[in-house]
């Protein structure tokens, strides 16, 4: 069985919204779980980047909420993460599980791609497999030759082809330092924060479907999927084009994060709410 790390996360008032465990908390936990796994079983992230000249670029993240849990009935939960390399070192996958006693709060999958850092100053890098010396430190059941499945395309198609478009909204944003990471690019963990603001702006605006759209403020998010195409760098501006759909009486949102002039797609997010 692939090696895992786990720890107890104590809940504070930021962990939950009025409705559920926040997706931005889960993304942060997932990234920290990977950092902890690497530090425990391989090398720390600073060592990986600084000494081994290897970075990890996030390609996709997929979150499924399980049992409904609120702030008042969950004072702590366990975070468990297991990491393995796929496609002969060209991909990595972290499987995350959040649980409280017998209750499973959420599961998530994080897909990353190793890159070789060619310039330590700018952290410019190129796609490259995990170095062999590091691959040798993974156990046999943590190294697979298969490629990871892409989940977003089918989920996006389901929403856009079977759903009824309710509304559309465009929201500008800027990647300030508080949304950035050490390489002066956006931190992928902040994607839920960005799209939540866009979604809530759309839901709160006057609209013929306002009552339906505002369900996203009281219903639980069931699934959050994101796939990354290219990074935003710090201080760059962009737009989130958000479309709301009714998919068999379930509210769904598709967010496309694009450059300000719309010429580049940087990320696509699909959110589906419970019925």
């Amino acid at each position, binding site marked *: 069985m692939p090696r895992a790390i786990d720890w107890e996360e104590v809940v504070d008032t930021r962990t939950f919204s009025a409705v559920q465990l926040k997706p931005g908390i889960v993304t942060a936990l997932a990234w920290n779980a990977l950092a902890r796994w690497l530090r425990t079983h391989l090398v720390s992230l600073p060592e990986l980047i600084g000494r081994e000249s290897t*970075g990890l670029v996030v390609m996709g993240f997929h979150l499924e909420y399980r049992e409904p849990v609120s702030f008042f009935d969950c004072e702590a939960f366990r975070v468990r993460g297991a990491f393995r390399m796929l496609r002969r070192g060209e991909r990595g996958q972290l499987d995350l599980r959040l649980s409280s006693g017998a209750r499973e709060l959420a599961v998530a999958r994080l897909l990353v791609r190793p890159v070789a850092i060619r310039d330590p100053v*700018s952290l*410019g890098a190129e796609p490259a497999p995990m170095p062999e010396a590091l691959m040798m430190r993974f156990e046999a059941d943590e190294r697979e030759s298969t490629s990871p499945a892409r989940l977003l395309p089918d989920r996006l198609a389901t929403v856009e082809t079977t759903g009824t478009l309710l509304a559309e909204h465009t929201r500008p944003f800027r990647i300030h330092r508080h949304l950035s990471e050490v390489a*002066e690019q956006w931190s992928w963990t902040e994607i839920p924060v960005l799209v939540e603001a866009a979604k809530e702006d759309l839901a709160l605006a006057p609209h013929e479907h306002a009552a339906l759209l505002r369900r996203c403020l009281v219903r639980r998010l069931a699934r959050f999927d994101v796939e990354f195409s290219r990074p935003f*760098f710090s201080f760059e501006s962009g737009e989130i084009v958000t479309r709301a759909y009714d998919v068999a009486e379930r509210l769904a949102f598709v967010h496309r994060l694009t450059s300000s002039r719309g010429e580049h797609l940087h990320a696509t997010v699909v959110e589906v709410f419970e019925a």
Partner: protein
Amino acid sequence: MIVVVSGNLRRYTSFEQEVRLDATSLEGALEALVARYPGLRPVLYDGDGKLRSVHRLFLNGELLDVGHGDRALAPTDELGILTAIAGG
């Protein structure tokens, strides 16, 4: 013409994203850029004076091939420098 700088490179241009330069060629524009911001030279160029492969050049939004060579620039041209897949 304008050079557009992104990401980690902006810390070397006093965080200016768009740098207006008097240059009539691509090589001339890059040279004028590092002359104005000397700290950028070792970041853009390797020890042999070649542009590091992690940086991509875009001319008026179009990606230039790796072996693009020098070319003439018009006063209205926009040269973008983008670091490919920043690590971390």
